[in-house]
């Protein structure tokens, strides 16, 4: 039972993460490869704040998500001032650089990882209660993105994605919107990271590397980028799929790359054969096709 609860918690955290990534990739039409590092910033900052300042865990998660948002703002502003293309480059550098720092400093536990993280809930039914909370936040994140995208602000995001030149000619500031989307999305990822660290109580840098980027891309692309429920659906599939492979009892050295091959292979298949994703409409107006003008 504990195993399944843990799996559902991970799936719910991944739903928040995928939904946050969908906000920039699917709706914003921007590619940031650093989303897992904002998740990592949330996880590490929340854990460290809770360990060293002994403040309520939930407050430390909120603070950590703010830190992730601020970092995203700082990373995206200079690159988005130039072009959306540069966001990929700067986030790639940010991801690799931050991982290198986490891997080499003592306070984060370096490559060995950070342990002794205080739990979000200390109770005999800790897992069940955490599951309830995380599911609530997963639903809340989906609702929030849906709400944003149906508001005037969401229509501005869509207009910007579809035609930036026309958008700018109306006197709107495209950079402001883009940077805000990236920062909000990173804050959501940071929040998910905080929840993750205070449930699993142990984090290592290798959980947030290129494998995490591939996993996240897979969730959003196969679910359907630019759809409200697609990434959530993708997150559930991608969280449960590796568990099926686990039953093959393969050595760890094979498991991780095998998962990587499957995930990236799935993304490639979907890019060419079903760019609208599983949830996207058959008219080809969702998923990767959504970015076509």
């Amino acid at each position, binding site marked *: 039972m504990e195993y399944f609860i843990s799996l559902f918690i991970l799936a719910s955290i991944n739903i928040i993460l995928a939904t946050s990534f969908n906000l920039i*990739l699917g709706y914003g*039409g*921007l*590619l940031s*490869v650093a989303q897992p590092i904002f998740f990592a910033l949330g996880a590490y900052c929340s854990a460290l704040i809770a360990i060293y300042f002994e403040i309520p865990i939930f407050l430390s998660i909120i603070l950590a998500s703010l830190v992730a948002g601020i970092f995203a703002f700082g*990373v995206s502003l*200079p*690159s988005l*001032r*130039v072009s*959306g*293309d*540069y966001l*990929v*480059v*700067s986030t*790639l*550098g*940010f991801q*690799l*650089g931050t991982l*290198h*720092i986490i891997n*080499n400093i003592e306070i984060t536990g370096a490559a060995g990882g950070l342990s002794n993280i205080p739990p979000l809930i200390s109770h005999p039914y800790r897992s069940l209660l955490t599951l309830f909370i995380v599911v609530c936040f997963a639903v809340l994140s989906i609702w929030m993105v849906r709400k944003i995208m149906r508001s005037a602000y969401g229509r501005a995001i869509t207009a910007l994605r579809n035609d930036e030149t026309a958008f700018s000619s109306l006197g709107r500031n495209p950079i402001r919107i883009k940077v805000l989307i990236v920062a909000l999305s990173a804050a959501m990822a940071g929040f998910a990271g905080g929840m993750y660290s205070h449930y699993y109580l142990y984090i290592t840098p290798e959980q947030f*590397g*290129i*494998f995490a*980027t*591939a996993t996240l*891309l897979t969730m959003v*692309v196969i679910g359907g980028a630019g759809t409200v429920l697609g990434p959530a659906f993708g997150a559930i599939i991608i969280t449960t799929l590796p568990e099926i492979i686990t039953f093959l009892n393969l050595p760890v*050295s*094979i498991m*991780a*790359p*095998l998962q*990587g*091959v499957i995930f*990236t*292979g799935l*993304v*490639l298949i979907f*890019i*060419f054969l079903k*760019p609208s994703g599983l949830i996207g409409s058959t008219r080809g107006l969702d998923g*990767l096709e959504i*970015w*076509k*003008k």
Partner: protein
Amino acid sequence: MFSSDILLQLGWTGLATSSFYMLFATAFALVLKVNQVWNFGQAGLMVIGYFSCYIFLQILDFFPLWAIVFSIFVTVLAGCCLEKYGFGVLRERKSPPLTFFIFSIVIAQFFVFFAELIFGTTPKTLYPSLNSKINIFYGIVITNWDLFALISSIIIMSVLYFIMKKTKLGYSMTAVSDNPELAEMYGIKKEHIYLYSISISSFLLFWGMYLFGTKAAIFPSTPLLQLLVFAVIATIIAGIGNVFGAAMAAVFLSLLQAFSILLIPSKWQILIAYGLIFFIILFFPKGFVLNLSLFKTKKNMGS
């Protein structure tokens, strides 16, 4: 504080190391200029090039020359497949730039994971021994590898310069990079040019990986996590479209990294490259090398 011997040694080491960085940067900049694609899939081609050579040399025990020839063939073929069945299909479908980005990043990751699955996550070397004969020249240690790497890279870059500046193929590549549709009206088949450009790029990548692999052991993830970033930064420093500027920028980066050891512990050296990304994007978004040439043009116009 630092003796001239130490400075000269660092300079020489940086220059020798720049031999493969130069090739990676040129390969990346060439595809970006001609095919107009940020080819992060380059890391996948590097993995293919290196591990095909590893198979021919270490597993099939081929004579080195044949192993190199076959590996070049495999890498170029993989590059052509990437262009024809990847970028070509997306181009035909008029996919947005974001799809190209996703595809090129994911294909690189796919080959890294595939290599990890087949060869494991431990580092691999192309030859059982990586020792190279040492020569002392005015107090500077110069290995045979240094000489081989530098001379071969300079020859390759010279041939590429000749191709780009003096041949019909080079003119065609420039024409396609400037305006593919207009180039087609003049009878240039842009699809062929894309294939030529990625073939040249694949060759450069293979040779860079061969040089790297004869100096150090390589993890399957090294091209993606370490080498690609250098190529991207050099391309941005040079300014998009400036192929030989990217090579110069790679030499500069390599020297910078070599000399940084005087001030920064070696484990933090890689951060210089990542930090430079932000510095360049903030202060020289159109590239440093290109900016210099623009400055010269403006000055000339002014006078």
